[in-house]
């Protein structure tokens, strides 16, 4: 499946799941495996997403995953696939799902290490803007701040663009920082971070 038909499939699955989040079982009887089964459809059975513009969530920071699920439901972060999926999740579901994925090992997407020139440029941009001030040493993240190291390059480039255009509106602080950083620096950062 490619392109639109794949997207249509995923949307259909998402809608179906979202409308019947609890399926035929009461919520309490659903195991965490049941609750998270739909996620593998996009984010990958083995943690490697089916598309490069879909983020790795395996091994991501628990607080960050929870906040994104919460923001999708609140419509602070817009995504036509995620929104139906979260529509009937309660806060505890989101916490449980976030904890489940945070305990998974981060997959190796096989992205290449950035060249010295690109790395130097990325680190210089970091020194100027202060990314590691929140994303911490080695860009591992913590709590509600996401890990960037080894994330999909295409997903990060798209996210940066969405922050800049405010298409992603759930972190104005990040929007401000991305607007204050040059596109060349941002491209170097995506390349550098994906290769970590």
């Amino acid at each position, binding site marked *: 499946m490619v392109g639109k038909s794949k997207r249509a499939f995923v949307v259909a699955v998402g809608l179906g799941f979202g409308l019947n989040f609890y399926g035929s079982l009461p919520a309490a009887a659903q195991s965490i495996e049941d609750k998270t089964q739909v996620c593998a459809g996009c984010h990958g059975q083995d943690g490697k997403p089916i598309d490069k513009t879909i983020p790795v969530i395996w091994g991501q920071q628990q607080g960050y995953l*929870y906040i994104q699920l919460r923001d999708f439901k609140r419509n602070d972060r817009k995504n036509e696939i995620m929104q139906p999926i979260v529509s009937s999740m309660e806060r505890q579901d989101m916490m449980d799902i976030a904890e489940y994925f945070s305990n998974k090992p981060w997959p190796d997407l096989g992205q290449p290490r950035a060249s010295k020139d690109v790395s130097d440029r990325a680190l210089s941009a970091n020194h100027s803007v202060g990314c590691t001030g929140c994303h911490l*040493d080695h860009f591992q993240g913590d709590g509600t701040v996401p890990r960037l190291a080894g994330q999909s390059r295409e997903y990060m480039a798209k996210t940066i663009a969405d922050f800049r255009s405010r298409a992603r509106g759930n972190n104005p602080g990040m929007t401000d*920082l991305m607007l204050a950083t040059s596109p060349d620096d941002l491209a170097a950062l995506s390349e550098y971070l994906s290769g970590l």
Partner: protein
Amino acid sequence: MNRFSIGCAALCGAVGLLTAAASAQEVKQETKSASGQAKVSPVTQQLLNAADKSATNFLLTNGNYAQTRFHPAKQIDRDNVKKLHVAWIFQTDVKESLETSPIVVDGVMYVTTSFSHVYALDAKTGVQLWHYNHKMGPITTYCCGPNNRGVQILGDLVYVATLDSKLVALNAKTGDVVWKSDIADPELGYSETMAPTVIKDKVLIGTNGGEYGIRGFVKAFDAKTGKLLWTFNTTPESSVGVWATKDATGRDMHRDIQAEKDQLAKTGDPYQKLGGGVWQNPSVDLATNRIYFVVGNPSPDLDGSNRPGDNLYTDSLVSLDLDTGKYACHFQYIAHDLWDLDAVSPTVLVDVKGKDGKTIPGVIHAGKTGHIYVHDRRDCSLIRFSEAMVPQENMWVLPTKEGARMLPGANGGVEWSPIATDPEQSLAYAINLHQPMNYFVENSPYPNGKLWLGGAFKAIPTEAQAGNITAVNYNTGKIKWQVKTPEPMIGGILATAGGLVFTGEGNGKFAAYNSSNGKELWNFRAGAGVNAPPSSYMVGGKQYIVVGAGGNTQVDFHRGNNIIAFSLD
């Protein structure tokens, strides 16, 4: 993320050693692992009140309730400090930003690390006695590193505040949790990196969050039970103030008062999401039963368009009654701040010369602006401000979409680093940053507990950064001496009766200087940034200097995990 198998954790737990090495991530293990007990007698209030006179202990984050960071031990002095060498090193399990002030009582040392760990060590040998590994909640929201600046003890309880905004009381002997209280909701942007100040029956704590649209506070909790006693909100319901157009030094801040008044008429008083965190310990005047602290920046940092008015009491010195938490006086350094040049370095209570030359009780604060401010303790009024300790250019240029250059940069001047004082010399010692920055402004609505800077501050890559150690006479405002350093300074400084000051640099250098003239007398290379305030103490008749060397997140200095103690023989 490094993980050890369950088997190893159980075995290692049994012998009281944690072996899982953590880098940026905290170690995910059991809550506590104890190999022994800390043999320490209960710390009385009398001992704490007399902390400034104790050459043996180091009982409070900044030495004593006045926060002078002047230690009375004089065994190590200007003549023999060149013989100072490492006595021991303790390597914590957390290799991340280290800002702790080591506390020492009865030969037992208490230190904290990033992610709110607490260790009890034998102060003579550095051997671990116990380790509290705080079970952190999944939601933590903090801007500048997962730091922790230390504990305080009263009685047989050790108090620590955590990144997930809790206050925890531990048994000083064993590290067992005695009580835990929630301070505020991390999901709304609240967190803790400061050490508490404990006095009589109260634990005093401020909050982080000025970058997240919180409503800042200082809270007092019952020391025995953890019950909340009082809350002082640092942003009062009427926060607009007097519409000051000049800062404390008399410089014009280019405010458009009419535009702000128009905004006020439209949206009302912005106090509820106005920021005003309190990052550092208050000083306590035991004679008058009053506390003095400084309040951080308004939210969002760079964009003032949605927060009309002076934004009281952000960027201010504030004094409260200790028992009730009621307001006593304040002084605002910068009204309607747009540069994040807020007040963070903790206050110090010293006698100072008033405007008429008479000696009066004073309170001083070293600002991100680069000035040391000297106040009358009775009414918070400003007596004088010092010469600028760092270059100042284009002061109060308004941030723009394209970026506007101003010195100092947004970290200062003096950041959260505590100063030291030597009352005999009337000197205050401050460590400064020089980081040329461009200030950018962007407008966005309140983001529900997310980062809310209202723009960005960017270091200018083509302009060199630097730092300095400056001694200022607080009775004249003049700089007595200044040592320039190759990198911006953040951490802290200690003065001793041996005529020395000790401070460290991000490149790993830890040095002793003659406190009268700034001559460097000794140094050591620690291998990671020395970005923490040093302490001093005595065990078995021997004086030690101790400091953390773990680097810093905010200024990105090389990370480590060492606590290093030095002595003469």
